């Protein structure tokens, strides 16, 4: 009897040890293990239900950031998958740490047709896999794009084409953040949606939000305060709030305190914009820029010129689609007219206020 019990314990310990080894391998890639790779077909990434082609697997949660990135007017759909039993580590409320196994998809469409679906997968603790899948013309299949991207994947305006970025270009923006996930954070998922958000989309029923994440125990530690007092950009006007949100969504991935561009002094990351919006906006006025505004004496260019708005580097660079001057520098070939008008209105309001 005693031997049998000892044997059972030993078997149990061995089983646990084997399981532990397997688990350990799963979360920390062995240095000798081949790097994880994206499958060749979108259908094999887990986006769609196995037995229902074209139907998104219900385990993948749709979401919509309130301040979306401008991609030349592309329609977008987004989903996130969190492995069962896991949660997002929100110890740092502004730097969410996603569990191993997290997957995100973002579908881009032009003129009513899906063109590409980008995929981000946290394969191991240290490895995020980036891939994009190119849709065929009839929307029945999407195959992995080459790592170098696909120039001219879709015509979006006369003489203008949507390019599928290279993996290196994807990383240019996504590695600016420790989490490598953009557009899925407290401000973007806040239930206090900005009604004036530029190109903002309404939060549809069934979409993931801060509230659903918290209620389902997917934030660790739980963040009930983000539900009772959802993040909101504190600005001096509704227009300023929308402009700051736009900058957070389109520029904050690179222009923040932690990245290589920190010396430029432009801090538009979501967390900072949300908590210090008015200060952020004030700091933009008269902020010196290295970029020379054409027609302005050398050394006198500023980000926002409230007296002569047309000389604001911010407006000029958002307007430009020439490679030497356009901002953002990649991911768009058509200027965002709605955003330009909103920014111009905000700058004009600063001029009026300074009179």
């Amino acid at each position: 009897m005693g031997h049998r019990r000892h044997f059972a314990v030993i078997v149990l310990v061995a089983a646990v040890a084997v399981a532990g080894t397997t688990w350990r391998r799963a979360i920390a890639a062995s240095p000798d293990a081949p790097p994880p790779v994206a499958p060749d077909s979108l259908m094999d990434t887990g986006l769609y239900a196995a037995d229902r082609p074209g139907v998104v697997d219900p385990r993948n949660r749709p979401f919509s950031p309130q301040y979306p990135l401008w991609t030349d007017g592309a329609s977008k759909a987004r989903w996130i998958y969190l492995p069962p039993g896991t949660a997002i580590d929100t110890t740092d409320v502004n730097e969410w740490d996603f569990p191993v196994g997290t997957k995100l998809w973002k579908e881009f469409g032009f003129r009513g047709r899906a063109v590409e679906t980008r995929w981000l997968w946290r394969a191991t603790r240290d490895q995020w896999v980036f891939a994009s899948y190119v849709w065929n013309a009839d929307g029945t299949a999407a195959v992995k794009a080459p790592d170098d991207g696909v120039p001219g994947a879709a015509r979006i305006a006369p003489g203008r084409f949507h390019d599928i970025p290279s993996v290196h270009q994807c990383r240019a923006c996504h590695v600016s953040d420790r989490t490598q996930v953009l557009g899925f954070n407290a401000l973007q998922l806040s239930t206090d949606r900005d009604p004036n958000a530029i190109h903002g989309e309404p939060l549809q029923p069934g979409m993931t939000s801060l509230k659903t994440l918290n209620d389902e125990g997917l934030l660790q530690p739980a963040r009930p305060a983000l539900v009772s007092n959802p993040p909101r950009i504190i600005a001096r006007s509704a227009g300023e709030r929308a402009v700051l949100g736009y900058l957070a969504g389109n520029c904050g991935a690179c222009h923040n305190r932690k990245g290589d561009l920190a010396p430029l002094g432009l801090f538009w990351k979501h967390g900072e914009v949300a908590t210090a919006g008015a200060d952020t906006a004030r700091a933009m006025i008269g902020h010196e820029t290295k970029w020379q505004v054409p027609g302005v004496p050398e050394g006198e260019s500023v980000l926002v010129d409230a007296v002569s708005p047309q000389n604001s580097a911010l407006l000029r660079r958002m307007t430009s689609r020439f490679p030497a001057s356009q901002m953002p520098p990649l991911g768009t070939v058509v200027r965002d007219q709605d955003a330009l008008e909103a920014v111009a209105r905000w700058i004009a309001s600063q001029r009026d206020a300074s009179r």
Partner: protein
Amino acid sequence: MMTSRTVLGASFIALAAAFVPAAARVTASSEQAPAYTPSVEHGAYMVNTKGCHDCHTPWVMGPKGPEPDMTRALTGHPSDLELPAPPELPPGPWAWVAAATNTAFAGPWGVSFTANLTPDTETGLGDWTEEMFIRTMRTGLHQGKGRPVLPPMPWSVYGQLTDNDLKDLFAYLRSLKPVRNRVPAPVDPGEMPR
């Protein structure tokens, strides 16, 4: 005979073996892989054989014709060379023009000037990191995330070099004497004063 305490002890050791040393082993393994030490000598070989001087060193007319002015090696477009607006090309197959120094180029992208590759902090690569340099070659974006690197810089060719080759190349550039030469910013089409 195995006692309960012995079994518990064995259990603990087995569990510890299964779970605890993971990080330690990964760390130990990482430590075994020596960090790469870039070779300045190989970097010099790369620079001298891959055409860097063709554009990043101003050319002058010498006794044997145009040749790179090695007294200004890799310093980019000379800041004291003021250029007029580029000539307008008629419609047809001619698409771009170059200054006689081979450091300024005008085409559909505007006007581009070759960079100062010496490690001067204010005007060269002095504040660049190795990672930034590699990212630039891989992405074609200034400092790996800024504006596009403009023609005719063949970044996509150099982007196919191995990380170690690029590290060597960067190490060599860092070993150069810093030279202060502020290269003009690129100019959009039509923005060059006439």
